[in-house]
């Protein structure tokens, strides 16, 4: 399995380098790091998924001495690794341009936020294809708008309220709760993807 993670790193080496370069340019023009972190993590983890999604790659990996459990698990591990690399790159960029360490809370929020996205993205991608990830996102967004418009017109306010409450928890508490929920979500998502992939036909 470690070989599968290593394979992901090697295959995406050029892509990663390129993305880091773009990231540094954006940081230089001072775009907020939370936004950058989430955007780049999403792009990279989606890309990480889609290279092995093609039929030929699935046939290759499944014919090599790996179990399907390992193939899925390696993707979840690689995703953590890729997000970690983004966080490191942002830290590096911050040191380079501002000569200060970036806000640790922000970095943690990037990591946690990105992993949440992965938790939702991967099972959808395994069940359908990564193409449907975008569709799902737009559908969810549409649903959200519909809810606001027709059912709970003050949903935004409610969310804002809840969010303020959450922010009042204090950073460390917030991270703790978010982290706990994330761990559970990530593991559930992982197990769900394994189940889906084991039944997959190609």
């Amino acid at each position: 399995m470690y070989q599968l993670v290593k394979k992901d790193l090697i295959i995406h080496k050029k892509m990663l380098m390129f993305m880091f370069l773009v990231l540094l340019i954006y940081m230089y023009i001072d775009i907020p790091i939370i936004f950058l972190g989430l955007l780049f993590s999403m792009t990279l983890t989606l890309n990480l998924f889609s290279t092995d999604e093609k039929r030929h790659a699935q046939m290759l990996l499944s014919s090599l001495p790996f179990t399907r459990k390992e193939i899925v698990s390696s993707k979840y591990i690689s995703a953590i690794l890729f997000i970690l690399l983004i966080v490191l790159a942002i830290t590096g960029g911050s040191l380079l341009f501002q000569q200060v360490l970036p806000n640790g809370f922000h970095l943690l929020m990037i990591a946690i936020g990105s992993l949440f996205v992965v938790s939702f993205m991967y099972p959808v991608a395994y069940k359908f294809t990564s193409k449907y990830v975008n569709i799902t996102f737009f559908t969810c967004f549409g649903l959200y708008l519909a809810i606001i418009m027709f059912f709970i017109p003050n949903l935004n306010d409610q969310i804002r309220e809840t969010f303020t409450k959450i922010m009042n928890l204090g950073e460390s508490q917030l991270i703790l709760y978010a982290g706990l929920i994330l761990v559970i979500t990530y593991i559930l998502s992982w197990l769900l993807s394994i189940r889906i992939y084991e039944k997959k036909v190609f």
Partner: protein
Amino acid sequence: MESIIQFTNVNKAFNDFAIKNLTFEIKKGFVTGFVGANGTGKSTAIKLLMNLLQPDSGEVKVFGLNYKDHEKVIKQKIGFVYDDHVFYEHLTLQEMKNLIQPVYTQWDDELFYKYVEQFQLPLKKKKLKTFSKGMMMKASLAIALSHHAELIIMDEPTAGLDPVFRREFLNLLHEIVQDGEKTIFFSTHITSDLDRIADYIVFLHNGELIFMHEFYTIAEKYVLVKGGLDLLDPDTEKEFIAIRKTKMGFEGLSSNKGRVMQLFGDLALYETATLEDIMFYTKKGGEKGVSIS
């Protein structure tokens, strides 16, 4: 003799096609050709064999083990060559090898480079996506043969090869089975490949097993009969798998050589049936009952 592959009552249904009750065994140390027209289920059966598909019912065993509990052990000992490109196309062969090498415990670098040289493959200069079909097959073959696999499974390996390399390829297969420890199972619809190498034939039609024999028994069992239309009546027609009738006479395939030769004696012409004849007539026989025109 030890069985390396065992299919027992394997069923797998799709919307428009099904593998039905497939049962056969592949013997250790021999070359088995897997034949049938395109779309008769060969690729599906190979996928079932590689655990890329799971049967709806029945059992697939490789090296006497099932995939559920021993997937990794089994696949360590299999070398595979597919008809499609399966490698990451933006890599070179060298890079691809570097990815695959650590996966196999028995990888033999020296052997790999020997094959690369023998097949005249570019290691670092060209990306895999620029490889021709023949080169890609050779690359797959080099990788499949470099980890001392005990079972080589190939799906249409000769389809993209020129005649010269096809001969070399068959010689290579002869070399592989020299020690009697390795088993080769490959599908093909180019039946002339089989004459020089195949020990056993597994013949599939419409998802069903038509026969599994030593290759030479085909010539002993099957015969192509040619004669005048006056020889045919409802009784004699029963002896044939299918008959092609023209104004000039008939040509029919029978799987009961001794009997038809006794039946028609000197009145008919007899020819050794090739696998292609058998494929053709089995298909025709399945389509329209016994007689065709």
